[in-house]
């Protein structure tokens, strides 16, 4: 044993204070106790220091000696010493063996040293050893049993605690499991659903029994299986602690369910993967909303067709440069006369018609692998991202026009819509999206012009003129802002005395690209696009301001001013207030103003004088009928109106001056018009009179005044007063 502690008799430099009553004289009892200590100290852990053990054993040696020296053997007292050793945790069998050896061989000798002359009978010595061993063994046995009992109880308690913890943890989990709005599944490491809560059955619309035993992947829609599988594999491999992916499902009733699926691995006590808990949050509403928002951003709300945004994206994609000779096709469609339908039958019917047409366009386009988009109003575009030449493209276009042309029944109306189409079909290389759409739009415009319900194929040369018109109409509003328009005045000369009695305002456009443009080059265009309202408003304002200036300069000598207004502008309900405001602002006396309008503009739809006429009359201005004689038979209705004169123009006027004598028919026509005007008490002004001979003949026919080259060159507003100063 004891190979480690120092073996030789300890030489104490001094016993630790208070731990030994040992004096300088070596006490044989203490000495014995030290040797006993050394014999047992390493057999088991004795929870005291060596000096404390010495003290403890010294006391026991004393008691054993006392028993030994007594008259009779006291077995109980000796056994108690044995038990006390065990109580101080001198418990090893080896300790008992060494104790018995030590006591058996040396206790008698110690007794003799303590009580000289004492002889201990061998029987007494044996009795003492036997009692000591019995006391030790009994106590040791009790101690072992007690300790085993304690450790067993500890195990049971620990198990109870663990089970309790497990139970409460399970109870907590169960409570969450059953009451959660989340779908919760306990899934084996093999992916099979082992347990599911009620929310799972609600989310998936499947009974619990049908979910149990399912594989978690088999529930997902095919396109989402890979994503889910990948996430779950990473979880099982320990690469991630948890995953969360959005997965789409389809219930047996074909309902689409979007679930945010998150999974976590549950490990057992040893840290090994045990099973997975997979949560399913139903995010269908959120998904549907997002999808709807996405759809709304790229689709027209009325017809459900792609909108401009989506078309632009697709067009961009279609025009992405690729090797090879890919071609692209665009068909720009516009319903013919849609405005009439809208105006006459009302917007709801118009909208229904648009939807019906959109639906047909979409079906046809989709059938050809093309994209149909609504550009706004009644304009649609069909994009063919990959054409193989004009023939197939035009096949689609004709198919589209046929489909649109089929009659459609809406709210009791049998409607026959037609559409015109501008078609562009060209190689992808060198095309840009904006240009492509513009070309299709211009081509559509031409299709409209050339008659309706037909397509026109884009042709770059023929389109130059159309493009110019397109450019003009597109730039007109900006040109007004940039003051590119200006007014010139054409003198109107009275034939009786040769005096200039009026100045006719003539609008012109100083176009930065096309140079100076005459009214006939853009006024018609302005009428088509609606820009005429602003243009006429501007012209009226300018002319009145100029004329007011003349009145201030020339007084009663100032000429009248004639302003040509378009019919559309004249019937604009805003004109009344505009008109008043313009006169007030410029300070022009109304009687100085003559509004030259087409005859038709003076009447409303049922043929009564337009409201504007009364206002003009009230203010004191008067009208010039520009196209007098066009509706001869209805001319009498002008009788009651403030029309002072009529203007005549045309080829037959020019022919009056040709040849030695005028053509009798021309002469008759002119004379008839003039007579009619005179019967209506109106003077006649002839336009486009260039020669003195013409003027002479017209004078003979009682034409009141003329304008044109023979009446004088056009002048600017500032030049007008000079003109009168020089002539006066």
């Amino acid at each position, binding site marked *: 044993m*004891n*190979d*480690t*502690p*120092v073996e030789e008799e*300890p*030489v*104490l*430099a001094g016993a*630790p204070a208070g731990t030994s009553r040992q004096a300088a004289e070596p006490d044989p009892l203490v000495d014995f106790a030290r040797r006993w200590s*050394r014999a047992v100290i*390493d*057999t*088991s*852990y*004795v*929870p005291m*220091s*060596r*000096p404390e053990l010495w003290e403890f054993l010294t006391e026991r040696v004393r008691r054993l000696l006392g028993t030994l020296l007594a008259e009779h053997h006291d077995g109980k007292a000796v056994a108690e010493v044995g038990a006390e050793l065990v109580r101080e*945790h001198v*418990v*090893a069998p080896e300790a008992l063996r060494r104790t018995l050896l030590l006591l058996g061989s040396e206790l008698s000798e110690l007794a003799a040293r303590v009580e000289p002359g004492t002889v201990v009978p061998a029987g007494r010595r044996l009795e003492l050893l036997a009692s000591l061993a019995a006391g030790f063994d009994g106590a040791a046995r009790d*101690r*072992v049993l007690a*300790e*085993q009992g*304690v*450790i067993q*109880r*500890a*195990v*049971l*308690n*620990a*198990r109870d*605690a*663990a089970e309790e*913890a*497990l139970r409460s*943890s399970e109870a907590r989990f169960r409570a969450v499991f059953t009451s959660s709005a989340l779908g919760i599944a306990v899934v084996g490491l093999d992916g099979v659903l082992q347990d599911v809560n009620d929310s799972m059955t609600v989310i998936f619309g499947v009974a619990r029994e049908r979910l149990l035993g399912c594989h978690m992947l088999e529930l997902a829609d095919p396109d989402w299986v890979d994503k889910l599988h990948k996430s779950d594999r990473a979880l099982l491999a320990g690469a991630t602690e948890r995953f969360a992916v959005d997965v789409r499902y389809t219930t047996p009733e074909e309902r689409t369910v979007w679930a945010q699926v998150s999974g*976590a*691995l*549950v*490990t*057992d*006590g040893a*840290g090994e993967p*045990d099973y997975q808990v997979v949560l399913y949050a139903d995010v269908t509403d959120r998904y549907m909303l997002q999808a709807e928002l996405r759809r709304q951003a790229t689709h027209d709300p009325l017809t459900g067709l792609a909108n401009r945004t989506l078309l632009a994206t697709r067009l961009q994609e279609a025009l992405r440069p690729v090797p090879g000779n890919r071609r692209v096709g665009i068909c720009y469609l516009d319903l013919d006369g849609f405005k009439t339908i809208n105006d006459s039958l009302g917007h709801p019917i118009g909208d229904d018609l648009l939807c019906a047409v959109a639906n047909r366009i979409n079906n046809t386009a989709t059938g050809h692998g093309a994209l149909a988009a609504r550009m706004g109003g009644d304009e649609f575009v069909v994009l063919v991202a990959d054409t193989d030449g004009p023939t197939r493209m035009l096949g689609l276009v004709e198919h589209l026009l046929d489909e649109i042309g089929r009659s459609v029944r809406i709210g009791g109306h049998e409607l026959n819509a037609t559409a015109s189409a501008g078609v562009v079909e060209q190689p992808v290389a060198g095309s840009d999206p904006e240009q492509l759409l513009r070309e299709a739009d211009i081509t559509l415009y031409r299709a409209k012009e050339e008659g309706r319900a037909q397509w026109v194929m884009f042709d770059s040369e023929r389109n130059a003129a159309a493009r110019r018109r397109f450019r003009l109409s597109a730039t007109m509003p900006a040109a007004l802002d940039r003051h590119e328009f200006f007014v010139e005045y054409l003198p109107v000369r009275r034939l009786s005395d040769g005096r200039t009695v009026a100045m006719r305002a003539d609008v012109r456009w100083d176009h930065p690209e096309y140079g100076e443009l005459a009214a006939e080059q853009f006024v018609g265009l302005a009428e088509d696009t609606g820009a005429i309202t602003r243009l006429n408003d501007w012209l009226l304002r300018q002319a009145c301001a100029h004329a007011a200036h003349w009145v201030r300069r020339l007084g009663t000598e100032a000429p009248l001013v004639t302003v040509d207004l378009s019919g559309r502008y004249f019937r604009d309900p805003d004109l009344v207030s505009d008109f008043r405001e313009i006169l007030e602002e410029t300070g022009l006396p109304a009687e100085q103003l003559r509004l030259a309008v087409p005859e038709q503009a003076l009447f409303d739809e049922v043929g009564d004088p337009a409201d504007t006429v009364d206002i003009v009359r009230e203010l004191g201005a008067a009208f010039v009928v520009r196209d007098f004689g066009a509706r001869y038979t209805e001319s009498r209705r002008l009788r009651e109106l403030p029309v002072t004169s009529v203007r005549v123009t045309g080829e037959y006027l020019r022919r009056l001056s040709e040849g030695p004598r005028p053509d009798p028919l021309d002469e008759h026509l002119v004379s008839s018009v003039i007579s009619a005007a005179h019967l209506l008490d109106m003077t006649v002004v002839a336009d486009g009179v260039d020669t003195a001979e013409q003027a002479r003949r017209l004078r003979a026919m009682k034409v009141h005044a003329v304008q044109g080259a023979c009446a004088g060159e056009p002048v600017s507003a500032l030049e007008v007063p000079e003109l009168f100063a020089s002539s006066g």
Partner: protein
Amino acid sequence: MTDPNRLPADVDLEKASAARCYDYYLGGSHNFEVDRELARKVEARVPHVKPLAQNNRAFLRRAVRYCLDRGIRQFLDLGSGIPTVGNVHEIAQDRAPEARVLYVDNEPVAVAHSRTILEGNERADALQADFDSVEEILASEQAGRLLDLSEPIAVMMVALVHFVPDSAGPHETIRAYHERMPPGSYLGFSHVTHEGYPEFTQSIIDLYADSSNPVVSRTHEEVAELLSDFELVEPGLVYVPEWRPDTEEDRWEDPARSLVYGAVGRKV
């Protein structure tokens, strides 16, 4: 143990426990056949394992008494194991009945055992927690009741940290305790080494590898580094029989055979 993804650890009696083997070496009977089987295997390879364990236990006694002598009246015994014979509260309360002790172990049987032993002792309790759950331990109800961190405390890590691998960051954990200990506190520390008798230590490492508590041996330098935040009291970090023996007789002829370094550090 607070990881919500882990179910409460079951009581595993299939595997030997270091705490119950230790009890066996000390002569206790708080152990099972599986523990004794391992202990006997160890004894076959390291014949003096019992004196070795007893020596370590004696170091605990001397360290606790050292702290008591310096006025410490509260003890946090980490990795206390089976509070078999000669445990901290007995040592402390024998000298100072008002002394308070909190035992901490991560092994459910050890904790249940401690609670059984401590029934009726209002100044001592046991808590199940991991060594590195510093905040959890110090914020526990038991710590609140027994420990006062405004007063110096003795933290015991006797024969504990050689069960903590480097990957678990033992130095950081020790530092975390250091931070929470008021100045004037002490750390009692012992740790297995292979420097003196590598074959003995290796036997222990091998045999414990499959137990619930695998062993990591460290060098003197490594152990000293673990304690670097503390000021070590005399005689510093030494083999445990050399650490303030009660008598000259308690010194070992070859202290290295104890296989265990011990030290008491003071927080300045």
